[in-house]
């Protein structure tokens, strides 16, 4: 029976149920159990087009299950369960409804077999997710949420335009591999690119994720961007430009992350950098590279969530999230600190942690396809990842100088959620075969070769060593209260100013113009009133003689006209 229901609908039903079930344990439990059921469903579904619908004259495929969509669907369900477990304490209907709708939309999009369905779910993720930001209920979050929504929906409408163009051109709405060329495909590519945080289109991510609620960020971090990665992998695998886009994505966020003060923004930059690896994998486009992308998305969702969870737990306990205000929290929150370290190790791709076995696939493929510079950039980025996610997050949150705060350990449900996630990070790291087994294509790769392990350890340990040297000599950038401008300055500062100036100019022109015509109209009316008003000469009672004169004139004119013609 479960087979006939698209997985997304399970989540939507969950969202509606959450509204009906009273706040508290029952609702929280519901939110954890149903994603697990969904995960089981995804796991057991046969491959194929399971829910074809003819709708609006279009042939829609609501459930296209194949190996690529299954692996993404699976991890989405899993992280939905973990995220909701982490959010067990919540008593906020908005978030508890928005989160399932968001997750459901993302999963629906993953299983969408056609572009129209994809578009609907694509917009669904945009709308549902903004509530996770607004739920912070502050003016800043409200404004950020609006910006986020406009950009996300903007991606959606561009996608729609692209689909329409493609449809007009080919008459097909199938969601399969596309070749860049026509305006339609470029639109679709661009739409995917926005959600995937391509360079210069990326800033919504760092803008929005730190603004969300504690639990909201955890949920947000999993879906939107990875959905975009999936969409790219499905539609644009092997598109060469992606390799370079990806490479740049891996590089520039590193520097921002290093100097950013807000820990959740650091993680957002880090997320962006990790996306770069996946995008490179898509760009390379070989089966193994796509495997690498899928695997990396899978493990990245887990460890990024884990990091956001641990930072979120700190925020939950202290109300603070800025590096300059944190430090020394390992004393009272040792478990959280440990889980954070697991996450950090995973993202830094230490051997035996999940990042190691996934990233390797991509690096290997980049090298195998002779993209030397890109490969160099990726290795460089791997060291860079260590600098912010591997070191900065755990070190400045839990160690470094003592902030003096002695908060309680994270609540139990958070610890459980983090524990499970941390366990998965390690489990996958230790038993890569389990993940490799569910990847889209057959995997013939062994991460644990001596050369690979040693090489990776050398890279990371010497980077650590460099950190030690720089930190001990005081050359490491200090954690200070500040923000850094990124491309968001364009739409947060420049664009409003330009609009403001333009609006004032237009308004001035309009006023002048309107004023001019108003005065003219007024003059005409006055003139008309002077001549035609009750006292005007046209309406005055004329003496009889004047009337007779008129008769004479008219007669004369008439005679003249008649005689002349």
């Amino acid at each position, binding site marked *: 029976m479960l087979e006939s229901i698209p997985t997304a609908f399970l989540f939507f039903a969950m969202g509606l149920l959450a509204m009906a079930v009273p706040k508290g344990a029952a609702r929280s439990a519901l939110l954890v159990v149903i994603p697990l059921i969904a995960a089981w469903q995804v796991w057991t579904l046969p491959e194929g087009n399971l829910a074809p619908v003819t709708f*609006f*004259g*279009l042939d829609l495929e609501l459930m296209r299950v194949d190996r690529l969509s299954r692996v993404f669907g699976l991890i989405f369900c899993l992280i939905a369960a973990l995220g909701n477990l982490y959010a067990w304490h919540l008593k906020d209907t908005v978030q508890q409804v928005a989160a399932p709708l968001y997750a459901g939309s993302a999963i629906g999009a993953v299983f969408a077999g056609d572009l129209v369905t994809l578009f609907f779910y694509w*917009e669904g993720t945009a709308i549902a997710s903004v509530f996770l930001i607004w739920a912070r209920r502050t003016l800043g979050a*409200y404004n950020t949420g609006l910006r986020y929504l*406009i950009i996300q*929906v*903007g991606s959606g409408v561009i996608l729609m335009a692209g689909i329409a163009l493609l449809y*007009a051109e080919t008459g097909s709405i199938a969601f399969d591999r596309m070749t860049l060329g026509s305006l339609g495909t470029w639109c679709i590519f661009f739409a995917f690119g926005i959600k995937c945080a391509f360079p210069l289109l990326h800033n919504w991510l760092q803008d929005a994720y730190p603004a969300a609620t504690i639990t909201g960020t955890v949920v947000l971090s999993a879906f939107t961007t990875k959905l975009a990665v999936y969409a790219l992998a499905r539609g644009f695998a092997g598109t060469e430009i992606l390799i370079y886009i990806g490479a740049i994505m891996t590089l520039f966020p590193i520097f921002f992350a290093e100097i950013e003060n807000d820990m959740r923004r650091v993680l957002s930059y880090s997320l962006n950098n990790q996306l770069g690896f996946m995008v490179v994998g898509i760009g390379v486009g070989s089966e193994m590279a796509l495997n690498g992308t899928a695997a990396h998305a899978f493990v990245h969702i887990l460890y990024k969530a884990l990091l956001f969870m641990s930072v979120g737990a700190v925020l939950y306990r202290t109300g603070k999230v800025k590096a300059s205000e944190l430090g020394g929290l390992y004393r009272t929150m040792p478990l959280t600190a440990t889980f954070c370290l697991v996450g950090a190790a995973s993202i830094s791709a230490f051997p035996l942690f999940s990042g190691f076995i996934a990233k390797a696939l991509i690096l290997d493929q980049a090298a195998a396809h002779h993209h030397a510079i890109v490969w160099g950039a990726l290795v460089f980025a791997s060291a860079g990842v260590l600098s912010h996610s591997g070191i900065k997050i755990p070190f400045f949150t839990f160690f470094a100088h003592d902030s003096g705060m002695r908060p309680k350990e994270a609540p139990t449900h958070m610890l459980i959620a983090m524990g499970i996630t941390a366990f998965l990070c390690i489990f996958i790291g230790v038993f890569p075969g389990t993940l490799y087994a569910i990847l889209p294509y057959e995997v013939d790769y062994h991460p644990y070769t001596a050369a690979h392990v040693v090489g990776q350890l050398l890279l990371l340990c010497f980077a650590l060593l460099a950190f030690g040297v720089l930190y001990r000599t005081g050359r490491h950038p200090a954690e200070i209260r500040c923000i850094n401008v990124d491309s968001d300055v364009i739409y947060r500062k420049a664009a409003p100013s330009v609009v403001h100036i333009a609006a004032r100019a237009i308004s001035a022109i309009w006023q002048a113009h309107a004023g001019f015509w108003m005065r003219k109209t007024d003059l005409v009316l006055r003139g008309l009133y002077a001549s035609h008003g009750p006292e005007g000469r046209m309406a005055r009672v004329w003496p009889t003689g004047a009337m007779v004169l008129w008769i004479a004139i008219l007669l004369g004119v008439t005679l003249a006209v008649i005689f002349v013609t």
Partner: protein
Amino acid sequence: MNVIDLILYAMAFPALAAVTNGIFRNSPNLRDGITLALAVLTFLIVVTIYSITGNETTEPVALLDMLPGVPLAFNVEPLGLLFALVASGLWVVTHLYGIGYMRGHHEGHQARFFACFGIAISSVMGIAFASNMLTLFLFYEVLTLSTYPLVAHHGTPEAIRGARIYLSILIGTSIALQLTAIVWTWVLAGTLDFRLGGILEGHVAGPIVAVLLGLYAFGIGKAALMPFHRWLPAAMVAPTPVSALLHAVAVVKAGVFTMLKVGVYIFGIDFLAQTGASEWLMWLAAFSILAASIVAMTKDNLKARLAYSTVSQLSYITLGMALATSMGVLGGGLHIAMHALGKITLFMCAGAILVGAHKSEISQMTGLGRVMPITFGAFLIGALSIIGLPPLGGSWSKWLLIVGAADAGQQIMIAVLMISSLLNIAYLLPIVGRGFFLSDPANAGPVKEAPFLCWAPPAFTAACCLAVFFYAGDIVDFLSPIAGHGPETVAGVSE
């Protein structure tokens, strides 16, 4: 019963409501009860017409000669039937809402109000079922006149001023331009009947076509094409039910409906496409879409903002016609229904906020969402539908319009529609965002909705916005004859 009788009943019952309101003006319950019954009856009659004709176009039935060769005649065709269904269905809802609002807000002259409402609906039915341009024009003007007292309802200097603008633009454009266009058409084509494929082809050519189209486009002032849009914001002085039904559904939709009728049945979309006569109109509509959206953003008064939003949305429909592709026309037709549902929801919510919390300015609504969750929830759904987001009805009409633009090769129009969506977000969602997610001590307190009849109707229409998402395909199949192809080949096949 044959169709013409039903059409006459559909026009007679609302008119009858005007009479009963006059007779029973001093017994509110009886008066409103009878009107409600008549509203339901009207809707049922239109449904009956639908059950008889489906999306067939029936033969016109002439009642009498308005002018030699131009009878007062009616028939049923898909576009008109859709319009009639939407208007009569929403009349029932709005009437319920109107009762709640007028009583909750202690408005005076309620009998006169509902009486004029009845006449307006009656003329809407006339517009919907008119089988020639002159008949349509007759009811078009009756609609203007019957809604004038509704706009001037409060009798304040402000209301009088608003009503004056309302009347002068609507009557002015219709007489100066539309009438000229109609007479010209008559002189050129020798007929004013609505015929699929148009009546002008072969009778006129060259730039004259564009001029004639211009006379129509601007002459149909109710379509609020810039620069003749000012009446719509001016009409916002009216009580909210008026704004809801008339300025979200009946009047403005009569305008764009006429626009579509002119495009499809007078000019014919193929003729427009061949001559390119509607190209300028397309650009103007695009300008209207964007400019009105930008103005909407600057308005703090909720109803004024919604009014400009309406101006913008109406131009979608005009744009759909001006694209001169089947998809564009279908999108325009579909948008009549979709926008009606969405916008009526928004207006009714605005009224509910006014009745419940006495707030009309957006800046004062901060935090109200928690006090009036149903109202604001309905507003959110309506807003999302207007923006064109799934899973709400508005997304389909926008999809068709974009496909239409793609078919026509007008990529810039696609961009316009896209940007407009984003602008819609920027001016509609802040209301919800502020309402739910920011707080203001002035608006704190326990949940306190407006009276039941004020919040239930918008909640219902909001639910309808959601429901039509799933029935949009049926509506498009229903409309398909106007695009010149059979029902089975509608959206699935591109041009």
